[in-house]
């Protein structure tokens, strides 16, 4: 058997029942925020949003922006068209066509390397999968806006032309896992 507990009704005073002062108090808080954010300086205001595009947030060092392909010293793509990125990609957005490399020390190269940015979910698995450190997402660039779906497919030349953000490691740095090991010869 449950116990029914009977409570007395709360009696509101006339001041409370009219609601008008409480509404005015709420409006005052909202307006206070509005004016302090509109005219206050960036440090003192308590607003979480930024005034994009005049102000831009500083992204964390590991922010995954648009992809880029890295170059060898001679300017050719470091990609060896192994399909590891497209295999790892959960969104199936990387399309590669491999071809015999004109340089006979290198077995194959990507005749086409396309990323469909509309399909991409920016998970970074392609970067992890790459055995050659040929693809990175360290550009710090947002996905640009597109007018057609075809524009969203970026090719090898576009990807090669993008640069890493200042402060990210260069392609031939200490983190090159082949460093110190002879390659082939």
């Amino acid at each position, binding site marked *: 058997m449950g116990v029914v507990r009977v409570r007395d009704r709360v009696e509101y005073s006339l001041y409370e029942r009219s609601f008008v002062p409480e509404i005015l108090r709420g409006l005052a808080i909202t307006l206070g925020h509005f004016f302090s954010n509109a005219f206050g300086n960036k440090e003192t205001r308590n607003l979480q949003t930024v005034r994009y595009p005049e102000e831009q947030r500083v992204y964390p060092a590991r922010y995954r922006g648009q992809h880029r392909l890295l170059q060898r010293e001679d300017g050719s793509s470091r990609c*060896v068209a192994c*399909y*590891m990125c497209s*295999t790892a990609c959960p969104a199936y957005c990387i399309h590669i066509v*491999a071809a*015999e490399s004109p340089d006979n020390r290198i*077995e*194959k190269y990507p005749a086409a390397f396309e990323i469909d940015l509309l399909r991409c979910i920016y998970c970074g698995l392609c970067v992890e999968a790459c055995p*050659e450190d040929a693809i990175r997402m360290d550009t710090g660039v947002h996905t640009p806006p597109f007018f057609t779906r075809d524009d969203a497919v970026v090719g090898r030349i576009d990807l090669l032309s993008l640069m890493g953000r200042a402060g990210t490691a260069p392609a031939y740095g200490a983190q090159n896992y082949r460093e110190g090991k002879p390659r*082939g010869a």
Partner: protein
Amino acid sequence: MPSLTLDGKKVDFQPGETIIQAATRENVEIPYYCWHPRLSVAANCRMCLVEVEKAPKLMPACQTAATDGMVVHTQNEKVKDAQRAVHEFLLVNHPIDCPICDQAGECKLQDYYMEYQLAPSRVVEHKVNKPRLEELGPHVVYNAERCIVCTRCVRFMDEVAQNPQLGVFNRGDHSEIGCAPGVVLDDAYSLNTVDVCPVGALTSTIFRFKQRAWNLKRSDSVCGGCARGCNIHVDQRSGVVYRLLPRDNDAVNKSWLCDEGRLTYNRPNEGKITEALIREGQDAPTTTDGVAALNKAVELLKPLANAGKGVAATLSLHATVEEAYVFGRFVKDVLKADTIGLVGLLPGGQDDLLRVADKNPNRAGVMAVFADMGLKPVDERELMQRMKSGTVKAWLAVGHETSFGPELALAAKGLEVVVHVAYARGPIAEVARVTLPGVSWVQTDGTWVNVQQRAQRLKAGFLPEHDAKPTHAWLMDIASRLGVAYAWPSMTTIRAEIESQLPSFREAKLTQVPPTGTQLPWAVPAEAASKI
């Protein structure tokens, strides 16, 4: 029957068998690289070492003859130690360039590493450098660094192809496979060396870098390159066929497939049409909606259907038995054509191994169906004659596989009605008023009868795209719109009807053809003999 004890289990064997043969039959896995069930024993990879009691050291299972009362251990610590050590030796000079190696995903070095070694490399010395891009022949490229010199390819060329173009050159860790000066690996069976290669040393120029092995979807089919009908696997991705590989069938091709057959991999891709074509006046054909094209075809065929004069209907010799039967019923019940034609490819190269001169994979099957249905087909020359003389005014062309495509198209220019069903845009499609998109043999279910009179099953590897449909489906659609409704809801019902209606197929059991085919009780022609 003599028996041996394999890991504590009594195993019977035939006298003369080796340990690995007995173990394979018992599903006991013994790893091996150089052994191949259809090649001689080399015992040079040492991967199959097993412990035989009372033998002073480990024995290669591929070479050691099984003897009565032998006690063999394949799983104990001594054997596992040997497998680890042997595998480490095999990888000493292997470049481990799996990401750019075409074999990755189907490589025995990868599989056995995971299964039997799984230890980091201890090699600190430089690996031996060898040529990485050596073109042995028109179809085969050799990477000496990846090679483990198991000599399977050498033995294949010596023993099966009977054309010893390959050999092992140099000694020790400088050994490599190659051709003697002036010799090129240009045998008609050279691409089998790529198949028998357990690693990525031999790669085929037709598949090299095209796709990664794990992206391909595999289906079982039959090669359409000639009337031998070798059993194959079709590897495709997103509707594009990338390669054909042999599928074991002791009665036909063993484990082999000729280069010519493999090169037909591109037939289902080349000029493929998946949308209907329609042609008005003298314009080039334009693509159109499938239903609109079907309506147009019906509209064109309707006046002819009952006239019965001046109508030709031809079928390609690449059609399946089921398609031939549906075609036969269609021309008898619906179209009432007075000229029945069979078109096909001209005879080509042959040898005493697999290739036969007849390049049409189902001549025997189509001929048997036509004979049983009382259809008397004419060939392309007679057909062209009748088109030019005006005896034929309308033409229903089913299938485009003919060596006389351009000539037929030229002769058919003057015809009032040409309706075509094909999976590729050939010369006939250019003159046809309507071309309905069919499907190629890798996308259709059906039966082919090879030169040995063996009925073999084709399995659809992937679904037809867009408006494409198998030939029999189009013919049934046209028939139903012309007032003849066939009650064949599935392929099985067509097969059952063929079995009950056609005397030649009464014993064939078309409804239950096993994966390796059934031998039909027909007379086998002399050209079916093979030395393979």
